C-alpha cells in the first residue's frame, strides 16, 4: 500500500509539488524563526563571555526590576573599588562607568537604527581589555577610543574630532584609538566608545561613583569562593556575581529583549502561513479523492479494507508532510539569512555566529509540517473510505456525501459560535496574557474554519453576482467561468477561504493601525496645545536642560520638559512616571480630567500624582489613595492620587511634578520638550531659531506638531509595511492553492474543454475562462477576508477603546486589497490557463 501511495505521488508531480509548497513555506517561516533567534542568542553569548573572560567577580548596584526607560543608574561609590581590592584572594580589580548616549561626527548624529551607543570608561587594569588595532586607549580628558565599525563607517582617523552627547549635554572629544570588541567589529549594530573614568563620571552624572566593579581572583581561589568573600565584605544593595553568571545574565537579558518580541511575532506569521497551508492541503486532498473515487472503489472491490484505503491516503499525506517539512526546515535557514539581511539593511547587525540548527528546531519543524499535513488530509481520506466498491463498476459515480454532510450548516454554526466564545473568553476572561492570546488565536482559527464551512452555502449567489459583469464583458468565457465556479461551491469556497485568512489578518491589522493613527491624532490634537515637540532621535537622549534652552529663544512663549522613567507600582506591574513642570504645563497641555482639574497641578508638591485612567484602574486606585512605587535602584516613594485624566496616547501612566520627579530619580533625563511660540510669531522661523539654540545637541529633533504627528503615523505605517511583508507569505501560499484548484479542475474537465474546442471555442477563450474563474475565486476570498478582518478588528477595538484605539476602516486600502486579489487571481491562472489552452481536441474527446 505504501508503494501505491508513493507511486501516486510521483506520478502527479505538479499536484504533489503545489500541495507540498503550501505547507513548506509555513514550516520554513517557523524553522527560520528558531534558527534566527538561536543565532542571536549564540552571538550575544559569544560577546558577553568574551567581555567577561578572566573576570571572576562583578559587583553592581542591585536592580529592582528590569524594564525600559531605565538607562540611568545610581551606581556604586568609587570607594568600593578599594573595599573589593582589600578582599582576600583578589589579584586585580577595576571600576568603570558605563552609560548610553550618542556620538556626532561633523555635527551629525551617528544613527544606529535603534541599537544603543554604549560608553565605557577605560581602565589600564581592565581584566579583559579590548584589542586595540590603531592608536591608544583614552589617556586624558577629552580623548575617546571608538569601536572599529564606527571608525570605518565614519572614516575616523586618530585625532579626528567627535562629539559625545549624553543626557547632560554635548561634549567635544578627539579620537585616540580604534579597538575591536570580542574580536568583532560591531556589537549587533551598537556602537562602543571608550572614555577616561573622570570624563565618564562627568558626562553621565556619576561623580565619585562607578557603574560596575570587576575583580580577578588569585590563582587557587575559585570564582565562587571569591564572589562569596566579596559579597560578605560589601553592604546590602550590591549585586555580586561571578563573571560567568554575569555573562549568562546579560546574554539572557539582551537576547530576551530581542527574542521576546521577534520570536512570537515571527512564529505567529509562520502559524498563519501553516493554517493557510492546512486549508490548501485539505482542499487538494478533497479534490483528488473526488477524482480518484473509481480507483478507491476498484481497490475496495479487490478486497482492500477501508482502513487500507485510509492508510494509503494517509501515507501520501505523510510522505508529503515529511518532504515539505524537510525542505521547509532547510528553507528556514534561508529565511533566517533573509531576515538577517533585512536587519543589516536597517543598521541592526545581528552578531555573526554562523548557522545554528538545534535539534529542537528540527523536531518542531518536522512535527508541525507532518502533523498539520496529516490532520488536513484526514477528513478527505475518511471520505475516500466511504466510496462503495460498486462505484468501480458504474460510470460517472459520484463521491458519496460525507456522513455529516447534512449536518454541515449546523456544525459550521457550532464551530462559529465556539470560535466566537473563545475569542470573547480570551478577551475578557482571566489567565496570563499568553494563555489569553492563545485562546483568542484558536477562536480566530475556528472562525476561519466556520466561514470556510458555511460560505459554500452562499457561494452560488455570490459567484452569480461576481460573474455577472464578467459575462457582460465576455459572453462565452464569462458565462462558462461563472458556471464552473458554481459547479462545486464547496471547492470554490475552500480555495477562496485560504486567501481569506491572509487577507483577513491584513485587513485586521490595517483597521487597527488606522484606528491607532486616527485616535493618536485625535487625542494629540485634543491635549497638546503647543507648536513644537523636541524629542530625542531614535532611542537616544536629550540633555535635561533642553527645555531651558528652548525657552530662552525669544519667540518661544513656553517650553515644558517631559521626563519619563519606569517604576514598579504597588510592588507589581511596571508603570511610567512622567515628570512635568506643574506651573507651565497647562499652557501647552490640556488635560482631559475625569477627576480633578488644572487647579490640582500647582498643588502636586513632591508627593502628589495624577494618574491616567487606565493606570488608575489597573492599579485599582482612586482619588486620595496612596500609590507606593519602587525605582529600578530600589528607592521607594509613596505618591498620593490627586487627579485622574484620560490620555492613552501621550502621558500614559503616573504624572508627577518636576520636583517630585527629581526627588525620586537620581539622574535628570528629558524625554521630550513641548514648546509654544509667542502669538503672532512665524512658525518656520521660530523652528529655525530653536534648532540654532540646540545646535550643539544633535540628538534633539525639533519638529512642529504637524511634523511630529506625521513621524508617529509614519512609524505606524512602517510597522504596517513590515507586517504586510510577513503576511505576503500567506497570500502567496493561497495563490498556490488557487493554482492547484485550477489545475485539477482543468484536468477534470479535459474532455469537456476538448468538446467546447471541437465546436469552435478558441484557445484564447478557453484560457480566459480559466482566468475569470480564478479571479472570481480570488475576489470572493478577498471579500470574505475583508468582512472577517473588519469584524475581528471591530471586536478588538470595542475592548481596547479605553487604550485609545478607535474603530476606523481605511476604505482606500480596502480597494487596494481587492485590486491585489484580482492580481493574485490573474497570476494564479497563468499556468492552469496555459494547460487548458494546450489541451488537444482529439485526445480530449477520447479521454476517459
Amino acid at each position, binding site marked *: *500500500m505504501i*508503494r*501505491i501511495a508513493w*507511486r*501516486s505521488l*510521483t*506520478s502527479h508531480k505538479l499536484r504533489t509539488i503545489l500541495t507540498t509548497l503550501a505547507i513548506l513555506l509555513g514550516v520554513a517561516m517557523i524553522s527560520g524563526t528558531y534558527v534566527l533567534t538561536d543565532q542571536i542568542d549564540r552571538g550575544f553569548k559569544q560577546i558577553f563571555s568574551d567581555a567577561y573572560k578572566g573576570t571572576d567577580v562583578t559587583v553592581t548596584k542591585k536592580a529592582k526590576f528590569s524594564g525600559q526607560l531605565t538607562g540611568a543608574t545610581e551606581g556604586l561609590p568609587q570607594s568600593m573599588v578599594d573595599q573589593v581590592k582589600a578582599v582576600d584572594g583578589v589579584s586585580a580589580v577595576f571600576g568603570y562607568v558605563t552609560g548610553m548616549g550618542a556620538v556626532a561626527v561633523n555635527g551629525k548624529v551617528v544613527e544606529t537604527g535603534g541599537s544603543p551607543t554604549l560608553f565605557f570608561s577605560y581602565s589600564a587594569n581592565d581584566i579583559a581589555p579590548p584589542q586595540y588595532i590603531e592608536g591608544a586607549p583614552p589617556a586624558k580628558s577629552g580623548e575617546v577610543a571608538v569601536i572599529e565599525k564606527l571608525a570605518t563607517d565614519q572614516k575616523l582617523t586618530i585625532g579626528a574630532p567627535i562629539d559625545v552627547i549624553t543626557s547632560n549635554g554635548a561634549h567635544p572629544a578627539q579620537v585616540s584609538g580604534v579597538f575591536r570588541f570580542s574580536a568583532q567589529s560591531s556589537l549587533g549594530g551598537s556602537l562602543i566608545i571608550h572614555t577616561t573614568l573622570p570624563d565618564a563620571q562627568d558626562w553621565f552624572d556619576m561623580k565619585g561613583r562607578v557603574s560596575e566593579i570587576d575583580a580577578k581572583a588569585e590563582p587557587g581561589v575559585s570564582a565562587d569562593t571569591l564572589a562569596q568573600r566579596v559579597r560578605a565584605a560589601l553592604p546590602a544593595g550590591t549585586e555580586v556575581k561571578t563573571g560567568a553568571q554575569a555573562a549568562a545574565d546579560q546574554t539572557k537579558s539582551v537576547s530576551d529583549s530581542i527574542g521576546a518580541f521577534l520570536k512570537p511575532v515571527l512564529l505567529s506569521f509562520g502559524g498563519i502561513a501553516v493554517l493557510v497551508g492546512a486549508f490548501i492541503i485539505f482542499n487538494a486532498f478533497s479534490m483528488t479523492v473526488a477524482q480518484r473515487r*473509481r*480507483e478507491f472503489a*476498484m*481497490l*475496495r*472491490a*479487490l*478486497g*482492500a*479494507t*477501508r482502513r*487500507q484505503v485510509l492508510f494509503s491516503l494517509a501515507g501520501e499525506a505523510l510522505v508529503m508532510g515529511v518532504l515539505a517539512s524537510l525542505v521547509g526546515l532547510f528553507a528556514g535557514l534561508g529565511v533566517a539569512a533573509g531576515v538577517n539581511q533585512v536587519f543589516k539593511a536597517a543598521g541592526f547587525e545581528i552578531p555573526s555566529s554562523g548557522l545554528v540548527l538545534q535539534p529542537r528546531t528540527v523536531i518542531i519543524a518536522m512535527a508541525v509540517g507532518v502533523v498539520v499535513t496529516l490532520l488536513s488530509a484526514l477528513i478527505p481520506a475518511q471520505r475516500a473510505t466511504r466510496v*462503495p*466498491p*460498486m462505484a*468501480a*463498476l458504474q*460510470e460517472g459515480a459520484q463521491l458519496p456525501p460525507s456522513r455529516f454532510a447534512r449536518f454541515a450548516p449546523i456544525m459550521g454554526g457550532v464551530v462559529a459560535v465556539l470560535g466566537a466564545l473563545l475569542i470573547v473568553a480570551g478577551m475578557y476572561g482571566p489567565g496570563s496574557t499568553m494563555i489569553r492570546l492563545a485562546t483568542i488565536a484558536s477562536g480566530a482559527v475556528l472562525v476561519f474554519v466556520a466561514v470556510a464551512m458555511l460560505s459554500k452555502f452562499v457561494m452560488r449567489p455570490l459567484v452569480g453576482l461576481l460573474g455577472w459583469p464578467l459575462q457582460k464583458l465576455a459572453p462565452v468565457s464569462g458565462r462558462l467561468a461563472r458556471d464552473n465556479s458554481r459547479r462545486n461551491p464547496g471547492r470554490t469556497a475552500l480555495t477562496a477561504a485560504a486567501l481569506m485568512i491572509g487577507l483577513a489578518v491584513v485587513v485586521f491589522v490595517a483597521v487597527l493601525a488606522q484606528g491607532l493613527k486616527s485616535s493618536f491624532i485625535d487625542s494629540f490634537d485634543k491635549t497638546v496645545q503647543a507648536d513644537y515637540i523636541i524629542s530625542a532621535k531614535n532611542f537616544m537622549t536629550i540633555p535635561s536642560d533642553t527645555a531651558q534652552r528652548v525657552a530662552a529663544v525669544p519667540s518661544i512663549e513656553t517650553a515644558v520638559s517631559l521626563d519619563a522613567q519606569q517604576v514598579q507600582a504597588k510592588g507589581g506591574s511596571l508603570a511610567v512616571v512622567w515628570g512635568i513642570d506643574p506651573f507651565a504645563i497647562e499652557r501647552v497641555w490640556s488635560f482631559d480630567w475625569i477627576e480633578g482639574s488644572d487647579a490640582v497641578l500647582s498643588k502636586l508638591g513632591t508627593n502628589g500624582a495624577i494618574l491616567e485612567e487606565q493606570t488608575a484602574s489597573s492599579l485599582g486606585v482612586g482619588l486620595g489613595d496612596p500609590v507606593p512605587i519602587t525605582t529600578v535602584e530600589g528607592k521607594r516613594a509613596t505618591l498620593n492620587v490627586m487627579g485622574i485624566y484620560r490620555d492613552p496616547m501621550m502621558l500614559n501612566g503616573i504624572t508627577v511634578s518636576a520636583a517630585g520627579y527629581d526627588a525620586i530619580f537620581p539622574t535628570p533625563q528629558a524625554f521630550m520638550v513641548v514648546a509654544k511660540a509667542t502669538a503672532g510669531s512665524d512658525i518656520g522661523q521660530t523652528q529655525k531659531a530653536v534648532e540654532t539654540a540646540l545646535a550643539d545637541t544633535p540628538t534633539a529633533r525639533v519638529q512642529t506638531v504637524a511634523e511630529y504627528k506625521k513621524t508617529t503615523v509614519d512609524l505606524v505605517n512602517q510597522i504596517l509595511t513590515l507586517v504586510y511583508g510577513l503576511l505576503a507569505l500567506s497570500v502567496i501560499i493561497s495563490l498556490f492553492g488557487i493554482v492547484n484548484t485550477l489545475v485539477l479542475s482543468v484536468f477534470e474537465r479535459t474532455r469537456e474543454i476538448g468538446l467546447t474546442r471541437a465546436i469552435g471555442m478558441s484557445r484564447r477563450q478557453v484560457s480566459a475562462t480559466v482566468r475569470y474563474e480564478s479571479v472570481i475565486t480570488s475576489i470572493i476570498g478577498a471579500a470574505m477576508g475583508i468582512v472577517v478582518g473588519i469584524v475581528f478588528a471591530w471586536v478588538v477595538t470595542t475592548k481596547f477603546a479605553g487604550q485609545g484605539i478607535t474603530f476606523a476602516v481605511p476604505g482606500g486600502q480596502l480597494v487596494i486589497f481587492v485590486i491585489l486579489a484580482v492580481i493574485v487571481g490573474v497570476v494564479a491562472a497563468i499556468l492552469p490557463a496555459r494547460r487548458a489552452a494546450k489541451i488537444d481536441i482529439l485526445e480530449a474527446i477520447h479521454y*476517459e
Partner: protein
Amino acid sequence: MSDMTETTPQPGSTAAPATCENGTTIGLDDAVVQARGVTRLYGQGDACVYALAGVDLDLQRGVYTAIMGPSGSGKSTLMHILAGLDRPSAGSVWVDGVEITGLKDRALTQLRRDKIGFIFQTFNLLATLTAAENIVLPLTIAGRKGNEAWIDELVATVGLGDRLKHKPAELSGGQQQRVAVARALASRPAVLFADEPTGNLDSHTGEEVLELLRHSSDNLGQTIVMVTHDAHAATYADRIVFLRDGVIAHDCGRLGRDEIYDVIKSLEHVG
C-alpha cells in the same frame, strides 16, 4: 447440444445451501454461489422499480456462466448482489457456503479479498502501477506474497511478455483487459465476476479476452460469471442465464450464436 431446463423458481426459499438441490445442474452439484428469492427494489412508493423480482440461482464450481438479457433487465444488479457489492431488498445469497447477505462491511471486504475476483468493463487498472504490479495488486492488498509458480503461469497465460514492466497507458485496450483478467485470477478466487468485459474492446481484442476466460475455465477450473449482452461473447460460456424484467426468463447450457438469437427472439415474443 442443448439440454434446456427451465428453472423452477422457489421464491422465499430459505433452505440451507448444503441441502439445497434446486436449480439447474450440469453434472456437478457443488454450488459456489447460491441465490434464493433475491429481490432488489429501487425507489419508494409509487415510483419504485423492481430491478430483481425474486431470483433463484445456483452457480456450480468450475462452470463458466453468462448472464444475458436486454438493457435494464437487471443483469448488473444481479451481479452486484451475487458479488456482495450490493444488498438485496429481500432474499439471501451464499458464496462458498457463507451467507453474505447479512455480513458487515469488514467481512464483505474479506470475502471480496479471498473469494471473489472482478473484471470491469473499463479495465480499472491503477495507472500509476506497472502491468506486473497491477496483476499482483490483490495479493498486495491482502498482504500475501502469492505462489510464484502460479503468478508465472498467469503471466504466461496472459501472454504479455515484455510489456509487463509497462504502465497501463502504454498498453492497448485488449492488453489492459488481459492484465485485468490475470489480476482477477491472481488470488485464485472461488468465483470470478466480469461485467461486460468486452464492452470497451473491438471484436478482435475482445476475442483474445474471451479466449483467455475460456482458457482459465478449462485449464484452471475457474468459476466465472460474465454479464454480457453480446451474443458472441455468450457462446464461450457453459451456461447462459437469460434475465427479463428482473426474473430469470430462460436458463440453458452452451449455445451457439444463432441459437442465442433464437432464444432472445422467443423471449421478446413472450413479452
